[in-house]
């Protein structure tokens, strides 16, 4: 079993118009920038994108939005230091937004990966974000019923991978990535180093390979925050 693919273009070539795509990362940490830019080169349209944020600056998800690839964002916090790409289109009614409390977003993704179709959370009860959702009382407290959130694809950035797809993440770059890897039909990983099986201590695996379909080595990955601070701009080649 060897889940490696030779390049980023091959990795994202299966992502077609209308797909739902989870993208790991929180703020500038853990974003699989190289995979996202390869997806911009591939250019599918009408995507639903799931990420904590809705893009920042002129790279990554913001550049996907600029390129007109995104029909809908599912996120908790579409504001960023430069959220112009999303904001402009959202206020013009050109892009849809499903706003989800961050913990609920994480739990809905985890539920999808774990085969739990619905669960109850206190978050959002009595607020406009829970409008229309079923509510229930348990032990004297009110809760909102939330549904799992699945995707066709997950794009994930790891620090180490092995050829079976076992992963470790770097510091707080972990964030949503282990959950998204579970929740997507096809999980595509860019890793700074890809090792032979046995290269990662079995006790230290953060994401078991069963959740991973494809692994691409990107040896010197870029950091979203650094790119944005440098004023980087990504456009289809």
């Amino acid at each position, binding site marked *: 079993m060897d889940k490696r693919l030779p390049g980023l273009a091959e990795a994202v070539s299966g992502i077609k118009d209308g797909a739902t795509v989870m993208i790991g990362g929180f703020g500038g940490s853990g974003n699989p920038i190289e995979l996202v830019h390869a997806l911009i080169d591939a250019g599918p349209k009408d995507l639903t994108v799931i990420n904590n944020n809705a893009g920042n600056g002129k790279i990554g998800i913001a550049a996907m939005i600029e390129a007109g690839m995104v029909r809908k964002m599912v996120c908790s916090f579409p504001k960023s230091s430069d959220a112009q790409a999303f904001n402009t289109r959202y206020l013009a009614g050109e892009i849809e937004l499903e706003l989800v409390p961050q913990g609920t977003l994480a739990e809905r993704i*985890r539920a999808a*990966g*774990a*085969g739990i179709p619905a669960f109850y959370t206190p978050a959002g009860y009595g607020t406009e974000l829970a409008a229309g959702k079923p509510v229930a009382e348990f032990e004297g407290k009110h809760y909102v019923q939330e549904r799992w959130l699945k995707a066709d694809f997950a794009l994930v950035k790891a620090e180490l991978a092995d050829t079976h797809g076992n992963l470790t993440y770097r510091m707080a770059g972990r964030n949503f990535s282990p959950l998204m890897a*579970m929740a997507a039909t096809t999980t595509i990983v860019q890793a700074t180093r890809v090792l032979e*099986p*046995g290269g990662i201590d*079995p006790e230290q695996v953060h994401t078991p390979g069963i959740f991973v379909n494809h692994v691409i080595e990107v040896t010197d990955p870029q950091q979203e925050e650094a790119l944005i601070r440098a004023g980087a701009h990504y456009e289809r080649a």
Partner: protein
Amino acid sequence: MSELKLTNAQIAWRAAQDIEDGAYVNLGIGFPEMVAQYTVEGRTPVFHTENGILNFGPAPAPGEEDWDLINAGKKAVTLKPGASFFHQADSFGIVRGGHLDVAILGALQVAQNGDLANWRVGNKGVPAVGGAMDLVHGAKRVAVLTDHVAKNGAPKLVEECSFPLTGVACVTRVYTSLAVIDIEGGKFVLREKLAEMSMDELQSLTGAPLHVEGDVGELSVPEL
């Protein structure tokens, strides 16, 4: 063969032929564990055990056991390169979440709609379920290994299970000592049978109608 039926080893061998290279597989405790021994040459399935390991290997040599390294049957195992450990919520997330390619289980009874009874015979004694009720949900294929009939001659493939259910409409394929049968659209569909056994005889040993759709192959296995 002293009688016209496969041995357990031969049933396990037949099931192993359907496990593809790289498949993620959970083998139920006991009889289903034999499937691992008959892995097809050149294929490397990855075995999952619900207590929290992926890619474990066979038992260690006697005296080499590490009792923190056991499978769901509490037997000592070894690790293969690329193994991983995780807690039980993640482990059953693997099961329920649809990440296994195949789960292979034993059976007391299987009904034509895919209902499975495999955890207790009646209401006597101490009940114990373990992961049986979880394992029947989620895997892309849920297969059963079983003698075609019970020791008392009663059919194990039935219209409706009389024993307490493990899961509803969950089994997709049954490997028996006489046949390979798919469950499709609430019916038993015969895929393979022993060449020496007539359709009539097979039907007489089966508690619900066997349907034929397309060819019925020969259930052919080596001496083991």
